[in-house]
């Protein structure tokens, strides 16, 4: 039976890795279409991808968007997590569920809702719309990680600081924050990935001139099938894996993702 379990686990692992490995290997194709395995190998599609303005512009947009959304969502999440863990008030459970709501509302509904609401308010700025949507989808992961970090943390230290005469805010900044820092940084890294990779929530919010990288890739593959998308994808895989390793070493991936 042990054998059987190993076989099934190996099959699941192969299934999970298959599309990723195929993209990475095919990105080194020399031909006009991605091949697995490539008949002749080349790096030329990397050069092509980096030279393609549709990708580079969108990559910059996505990077900025991820950084701004994460920087805005982090203080919000810190305050909320702190209030949930340290505060005592009726309806804490319900509130915690409400804070995670953006995870459960279908992303396509969030995207549409922000589109129509911002149109109503006369907001035509693509950047503003995207930042709003991305703060919403990154925020739950940050709250979850920070709540987990605060729950594991020894309350006595914070109280000691207060007993010794430190102002609560001072105690927070000098004692609590440094102790939960690995959790906060891991949450921020994950938020960066979530924002950078997200497609559905941006779906209705970009414009012909301002696009995000995942949507630019989606648009590109509608009309082209050359391996430059595989090259871009491989670079994305590398970045994601690097971030995953960092998070795993800092606090463990599972605590960030939840479950």
């Amino acid at each position, binding site marked *: 039976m042990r054998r059987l*379990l190993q076989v*099934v*686990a190996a*099959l*699941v*692992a192969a299934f*999970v*890795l*298959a*599309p*990723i490995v*195929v*993209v990475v290997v*095919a990105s080194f194709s020399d031909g006009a*279409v*991605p*091949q*697995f395995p490539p008949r002749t190998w080349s790096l030329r599609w990397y050069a092509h991808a980096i030279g393609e303005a549709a990708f580079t512009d969108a990559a910059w947009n996505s990077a900025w968007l991820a950084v701004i959304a994460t920087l805005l969502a982090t203080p*919000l999440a810190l*305050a*909320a997590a702190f*209030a949930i863990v*340290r*505060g*005592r*008030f009726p309806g804490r459970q319900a509130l915690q569920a409400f*804070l995670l*709501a953006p995870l*459960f*509302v*279908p*992303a*396509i*509904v*969030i995207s*549409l*809702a*922000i589109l*129509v*609401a911002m149109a109503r308010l006369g907001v035509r700025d693509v950047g503003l719309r995207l930042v709003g949507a991305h703060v919403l989808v990154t925020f739950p992961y940050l709250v979850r990680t920070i709540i987990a970090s605060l729950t594991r943390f020894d309350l006595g230290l914070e109280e000691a600081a207060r007993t010794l005469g430190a102002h609560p805010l001072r105690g927070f900044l000098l004692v609590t924050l440094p102790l939960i820092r690995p959790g906060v940084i891991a949450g921020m890294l994950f938020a960066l990935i979530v924002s950078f*990779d997200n*497609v559905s929530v941006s*779906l*209705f919010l970009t414009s012909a001139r301002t696009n995000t990288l*995942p949507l630019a*890739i989606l648009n590109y*593959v509608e009309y082209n099938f050359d391996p430059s*998308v595989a090259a871009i*994808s491989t670079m*994305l895989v590398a970045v*994601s*894996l690097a*971030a*995953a390793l960092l998070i*795993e070493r800092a606090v*463990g*991936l599972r605590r960030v*993702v*939840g*479950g």
Partner: protein
Amino acid sequence: MLSRPATFAMLAPVLLVLILLLVLPVGYLISFSVLARGTGPQTLGAFTMANYGRLFGDTYYLALFGRTLWLSALTTAIAALAGTCFAWFMWQSGRRWRGPLTILILSPLLISIVVTSYGWVVLLGRNGAINTALEALGLISAPLRLIHNDFGIVVGLVHVVIPFMVLCVLAALERIEAVLGEAAMTLGAQPWRVLWHVILPLAMPGVAAGTTIVFCLSLSAYVTPAVLGGSGPNFVTTMIYDLFITQYDWPFGAAVAAVLLATALAIVILYQRLLARLGAEA
């Protein structure tokens, strides 16, 4: 402990953001669903329930909802089976393997869905790796149709949701004392009896939680059916996109979105109830 005013002050900004960016916009979007389509482009008419009447009265739309629920259920069943096995394997494997296995099983979640969908196209497409290999081996004469149909949707969806299933089951398994299984075996139980009578019942809360969350995620997926599914609206989400972008029928699109949202939220509430009840029993 924080004082009440301090707690409120810390929660206020978040609540404001959630209300302004989520609650009010979603409410506003749904309010379109009870309005008639206006005479001009992007104008709206008077109050009506006709959009919901059309949605629930037309077998075309009902069938599309039915398809979406069916494909999501199929995805969930496959993910539950495969995910439980993998979680069990992870649970039994040593500490050293935990990190690499975690990154492996979470990779669909860490890597953009655009990348993995493209990977499936390269692998399963008409001229993809699998068809090329099968043809070279002489096993098939014409390429198999592996994507741009329901098979493609289910393959893509299982890939997207499997991390959540594994995480849920693993969390449940980790609450089990490993000695339980050993105790049962020492008392003479066969390994499969240990699995059936000891391990599975204890893992059930995790499987139940994983099943609900995975079903909810499948239902709301957009990219997978858009890239790997057949042409035309093939899923509720792709229909919503079509109604808003191609047909400019915002009121009806909003009605479909409202029903999708209600379904997703009903499942999540069920999930919370389930978690609470199973937590109380454990």
